[in-house]
C-alpha cells in the first residue's frame, strides 16, 4: 500500500547506491536490455515513421476518447462481454470483488497488470478472503517477497538469482542454495501449473483495446495470461481508459513497437486477441479512469497518456538504472512514472521530476514519442510554482536566481570562488549543503572566467595580436587532481 509520507527519492536512491557493486550490476542489467532494443529498432528502416504513426494514432485517441470508449463498450457487449465503469480504484476493486463473490470464486490467477497494481487490488481481495496468485514469474517472485514490482516489464530486475533461490527454497521447497535460472523457472512452472488448474477465475490487464471491434489484446512471453483465462470460465479484464485504439489495424503499428522497445524482441511470444468470452464462459471488462481524465484535461501532460508501458524509458534512464525502481515509490517508476505520479499527487511526488538529468534519452527511445524530459522540466516549474519544493532546494534556487539577475554580483562571486576554492579545506566544500559533491568531486576552478577570456581576446584582436590564454597566476593545489575522497 502507498504511505501518506512524502516520497524522498534522493534519500531512497542514496540507500540503493550505497551498495556500489549492486548499483553497477543493476545499471548493466538494464543497459543490456537497452542495447537489445537498439538492435531491434535498427532492424526496421521505417522505425521513425512507425513512432510517428503511433504518436498520431494516440493523439487521435485522446482527442476522441469518449466516442471510442462508447463504441468499444457497445461492440464488446455485442460480443457477449459485460462492461463495467469505474471512476477510481475503490470502484474498480469493489466491482471486481462483487463479480468474484457472486460467482463464489475464491482462488484467482492474475497476469501482470500495472492497473491492478495501481488500484492495490491484491491486498483488497486478500482482505476479503480471496487468494490472488500473480502468475508472471517476475511478479510471482516479488509477490513472494511481499514487495511491489521495481520495473513495469521486468518486475524483479533488482533481484539476484541467489536471492530468488532463497525465496523459492522458503516458499516452494526448492534445494537450498540453488541458483540456476533454469531449475528455478522449472520449479515455478510446476508450482504455478497447480495454481492455474485450481483457479476459479482469471484476471488480466489489457495492452490494447479496439474501439472498432470491442476486442482487446494481451501480450506476454510466458503464456500466463492465456493459461489463466482459458481454464476457468470466468475472465475479468481490467482496462485503463487510455488503452483504446480506434481500429484493429492500428495493432499492426503497436505490436511492432511494443516488444522491440520493451525487451528487444521482434514481438512477444503470445499476442492474444480476445473477442467475447470463452464458449460457455463469462467475460467482464472493467473500464477504469482513476485520474486519467485529469491528465487528459491538462495540455502540458496530456501526451503522457500515449504511454504503452514498454519500459524503454526506464531501461535507458541514467537515474533509474542507478537508483532502482523502488526509490520512486510509485506504481510506474522511472521517467514516465515521474510524470504520472505527480499528476496524482504533486506534493507527495515532488522529488520525482528532479530525478532526471534532462539528458533526453527517454524521449529518444519512447516508441510513441512522448516528450518525457520536457514534461519533467514542466513539472519542475509547476512544483516550484505550487511551493512544493523542499525548503533547501527552494532557498538554493532563489539565491541562484537572485545572483543570476545581478551580473556584477555573479562576476564578483565567480572571481572570489576562483581564488578561494583551490585553497579551501575539504570539510568546507563537501558537507550537507553541497549535495552535488556527495558522489563526485568539484571540477578544478579555471584560472579565468569566460568573460575575462573574452575581454582579453577582444583586446588582443584590437591590437592585431594572436590570441593565447594567459597562464594562471595561481595553479590549483593537487587536492583536486589527485583526490582521495571516499564515499
Amino acid at each position, binding site marked *: 500500500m502507498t504511505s501518506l509520507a512524502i516520497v524522498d527519492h534522493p534519500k531512497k536512491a542514496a540507500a540503493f547506491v550505497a551498495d556500489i557493486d549492486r548499483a553497477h550490476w543493476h545499471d548493466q542489467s538494464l543497459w543490456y536490455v537497452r542495447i537489445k532494443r537498439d538492435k531491434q529498432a535498427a532492424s526496421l528502416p*521505417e522505425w521513425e515513421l512507425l513512432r510517428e504513426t503511433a504518436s498520431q494514432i494516440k493523439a487521435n485517441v485522446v*482527442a476522441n476518447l469518449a466516442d471510442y470508449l462508447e463504441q468499444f*463498450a457497445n461492440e464488446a457487449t455485442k460480443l457477449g462481454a459485460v462492461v463495467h465503469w469505474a471512476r477510481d480504484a475503490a470502484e474498480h476493486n*469493489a466491482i471486481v470483488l462483487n463479480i468474484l463473490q457472486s460467482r463464489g470464486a475464491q482462488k484467482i490467477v492474475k497476469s501482470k497488470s500495472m492497473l491492478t497494481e495501481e488500484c492495490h487490488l491484491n491486498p483488497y481481495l486478500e482482505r476479503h478472503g480471496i487468494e490472488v496468485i500473480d502468475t508472471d514469474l517476475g511478479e510471482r517472485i516479488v509477490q513472494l517477497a511481499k514487495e511491489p514490482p521495481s520495473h513495469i516489464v521486468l518486475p524483479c530486475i533488482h*533481484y*539476484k538469482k541467489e536471492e530468488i533461490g532463497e525465496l523459492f527454497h522458503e516458499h516452494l521447497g526448492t534445494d537450498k542454495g540453488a541458483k540456476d535460472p533454469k531449475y528455478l523457472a522449472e520449479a515455478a512452472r510446476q508450482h504455478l501449473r497447480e495454481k492455474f488448474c485450481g483457479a476459479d477465475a482469471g484476471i488480466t490487464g489489457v495492452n490494447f483495446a479496439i474501439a472498432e471491434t470491442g476486442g482487446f489484446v494481451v501480450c506476454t512471453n510466458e503464456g500466463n495470461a492465456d493459461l489463466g483465462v482459458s481454464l476457468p470460465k470466468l475472465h475479468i479484464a481490467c482496462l485503463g481508459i487510455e488503452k483504446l485504439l480506434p481500429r*484493429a489495424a492500428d495493432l499492426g503499428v503497436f505490436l511492432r513497437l511494443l516488444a522491440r522497445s520493451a525487451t528487444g524482441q521482434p514481438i512477444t511470444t*503470445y499476442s492474444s486477441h480476445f473477442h467475447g468470452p470463452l464458449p460457455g464462459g463469462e467475460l467482464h471488462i472493467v473500464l477504469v479512469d482513476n485520474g486519467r481524465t485529469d491528465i487528459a484535461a491538462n495540455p502540458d501532460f496530456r501526451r503522457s497518456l500515449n504511454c504503452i508501458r514498454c519500459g524503454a524509458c526506464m531501461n535507458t534512464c541514467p537515474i533509474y538504472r542507478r537508483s532502482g525502481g523502488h526509490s520512486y515509490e510509485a506504481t510506474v517508476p522511472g521517467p514516465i512514472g515521474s510524470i504520472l505520479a505527480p499528476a496524482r499527487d504533486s506534493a507527495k511526488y515532488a522529488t520525482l521530476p528532479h530525478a532526471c538529468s534532462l539528458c533526453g534519452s527517454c524521449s529518444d527511445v519512447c516508441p510513441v514519442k512522448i516528450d518525457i524530459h520536457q514534461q519533467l522540466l514542466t513539472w519542475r516549474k509547476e512544483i516550484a510554482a505550487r511551493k512544493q519544493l523542499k525548503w533547501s532546494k527552494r532557498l538554493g534556487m532563489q539565491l541562484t536566481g537572485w545572483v543570476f539577475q545581478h551580473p556584477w554580483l555573479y562576476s564578483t562571486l565567480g572571481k572570489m570562488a576562483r581564488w578561494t576554492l583551490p585553497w579551501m579545506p575539504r570539510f568546507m566544500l563537501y558537507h550537507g549543503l553541497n549535495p552535488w559533491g556527495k558522489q563526485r568531486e568539484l571540477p578544478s576552478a579555471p584560472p579565468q572566467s569566460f568573460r575575462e577570456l573574452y575581454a582579453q581576446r577582444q583586446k588582443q584582436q584590437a591590437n592585431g595580436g594572436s590570441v593565447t590564454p594567459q597562464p594562471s597566476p595561481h595553479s590549483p593545489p593537487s587536492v583536486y587532481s589527485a583526490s582521495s575522497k571516499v564515499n
Partner: protein
Amino acid sequence: MGLPDTNSAKNAILGAIRAINIPPAPLPPLQRSEWITYPDPAAQFAIVLASIGGTCETVADTAELNEKLRHLPAFTTARQIVNLVPHVNLPAEHLLKEQEIADPHHLVDVDLAIMPGEFAVAENGAVWCVTRHLRHRVLYFITQHLALVVPREQIVHNMHQAYERLAWGQAEFGLFLAGPSKTADIEQSLVIGAHGARSLTVFLV
C-alpha cells in the same frame, strides 16, 4: 459495500472527457510503401523464428510432414498427443481426441499438440492461430510441446499486411504465436518453457 452504480460512473467519466476541449488530430494512413518487405519472406521467417527459440521446417508434401513429425523429439517421447491437422497421419496409440474432452483441465497432460496455423509473419516469426477448429483454446498454452502446420504460400512480410488479412465482427479468440513460451525474469537469463509450450516447431508445407 454495495456495487457502485456503473451507469453513473459511465456518465461521469464520459461527461468529464467530453468537457475537455482537445484539438482534433486526424488518424494517419496505415498502408504505406515504407513498411519493410523481404526478398525471401520464408527464409526471413525461419531466421527470426530460430532467433526467438523456435524451429522452422520446410517440407515438400504431406508425406514428408508425417515423416518429420514422427521424428520430432517431442513426438518420440510423448504419451499424449493431440492432432488437429486433417492431413496429418500418425500412429493412433497415443492420440487423444480433443473434441471428446468436456473439461479443458483434462488436457493438462498433453505432451504434444499438432495444430494448424493460418499464416506466418516474416518480420517477427509469428504465426496467426485461431480456435474455430478446436473445442478448447487452452490447448495452445497447456501442451508441453507444440507443432504448427502452415501453408508455405501463406507468409506475409510485416504486421500491417497481417492485419489486412484479418476480419473481425464475431466472438472469437485468435493469437499471434511467436516461438516457445519463455521468461527472462531471473537475472535476464533466458529460460525456454515458462508456462506454455517448451518447444515450437513450425512446418511450412
